[in-house]
């Protein structure tokens, strides 16, 4: 557990000192939301699409954050020294996933707020509980899949374009589930609250599956590249 927290702290400290998330990713994600609004050009359509657009922007931003999380490891072969310090590579995996989770959660909070402000989405009463649960579980899935595929493409030539190509199809179930559940939380006409909670179940299963698969695959993935 200490190792996990230490790795996460290290990543978050690097992030805090360089402020990549704040300076580049958050503006990028907000820009995506603004561009969607311009492209759709209809307030009714925007309100209907708000949940899906928030999670699309999250998926794109995740690619950037993951890229960054592994660039700091590969640049000085830092990953090798990191793995040499710990007995279990799976702890490094969970540590990096935890740091990604914290960053993506902050980003999700900004984007949901932006959806309320820009798209007119509204959340009230017990729907807030659903929304928070959705954001936590979906961000958990994004963090584990992101860490896993970040490790897959780390050290590869052309990894900038390979990461989205490999990771986005895998994230499709998460996009479907998170969008539908968020729609329910935004009080959409098409999905009621109970169905929203059913989608949260899917998100939980998804995060657990990729959390364990990632921990298992992390060791062979990082070994082969050294």
């Amino acid at each position, binding site marked *: 557990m200490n190792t996990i927290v230490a790795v996460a702290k290290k990543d978050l400290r690097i992030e805090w000192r360089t402020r990549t998330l704040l300076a580049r990713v958050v503006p990028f994600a907000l820009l995506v939301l603004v561009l969607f609004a311009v492209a759709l050009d209809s307030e009714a359509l925007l309100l209907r699409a708000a949940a899906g657009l928030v999670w699309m922007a999250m998926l794109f931003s995740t690619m950037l954050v993951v890229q960054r999380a592994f660039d700091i490891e590969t640049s000085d072969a830092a990953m090798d020294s990191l793995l040499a310090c710990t007995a279990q590579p799976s702890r490094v995996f969970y540590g990096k996933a935890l740091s990604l989770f914290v960053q993506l959660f902050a980003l999700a909070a900004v984007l949901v707020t932006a959806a309320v402000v820009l798209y007119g989405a509204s959340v009230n009463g017990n729907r807030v509980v659903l929304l928070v649960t959705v954001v936590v579980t979906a961000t958990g899935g994004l963090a584990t899949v992101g860490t896993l595929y970040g490790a*897959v493409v780390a050290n590869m030539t*052309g990894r900038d374009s390979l990461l989205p*190509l490999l990771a986005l199809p*895998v994230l499709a*179930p998460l996009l479907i589930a998170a969008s539908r559940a968020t729609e329910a939380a935004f009080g959409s006409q*098409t999905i009621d609250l109970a169905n929203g909670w059913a*989608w949260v179940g899917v998100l939980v299963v998804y995060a657990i599956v990729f959390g364990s698969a990632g921990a298992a695959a992390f060791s062979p993935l990082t070994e*082969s590249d050294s």
Partner: protein
Amino acid sequence: MTVSSTGTPTTRVIGGLALLITGWVVVSAFFITPADSVQGDSVRIMYAHVPTAWIAYLAFVTTAIASGFSVARRHRTLGFDRVAGASAEVGVLFMAMTLITGSLWGRLTWGTFWQWDPRLTTTLFLFVTYVGYLAVRRIDTDPRQRASRSSVIALLAVLEIPLVHFSVVLWRSLHQEASVLNTDGDVRLDGLMLFTLFSGVVAFTLIFVWLVIHRQRLTTLSDLERVVGLDAAITARRAENSAGVTA
């Protein structure tokens, strides 16, 4: 050692049989079998569509199993990895054909090229997933490293596909819009139609086996060429060097 062909008597027999049966399927599908009472002539697309879909799934299962063996043997022998890669390549090709023939058939029967039906959507995601797998295989790197990277991706795809399928099924069943048309594509087949379809599956399976054997041998040769080519280059440089010293 020069190799001019990857063919052997076995592959020639398989190839010849595949040609023969494909010939029969073409003749039967276009001229002998009757048009369907509901779908008319568009049913003839099925004789190509169903076998290509079957081969695509067979190919991806082969890739998954071969990757599993490759991991289990710790990539000591690259044979399994080459079969996995060859099979995925053929699978992507056949899945593209499935999607194209399927959407042509859908245009004639449903009136649209595409329906967001669970089976179609999952197939599309499967297709994109293996395109990504092939992109990773194309990176010019040491064959052993290629084997370990691509096997992990292939095994993760096995994990991903049921999740995609499940979520898409759930998505469509919760969706409250009425379906545009009756999407029930089941066809009542008479004996000859069924036999033609079955022949198509056999023909395409033979083509698949033939392609995978050849592709796998080609990968072996190009892996070999990396090693031999490097040795030859080193020998050539050494020869140059010693010639320079004596001169």
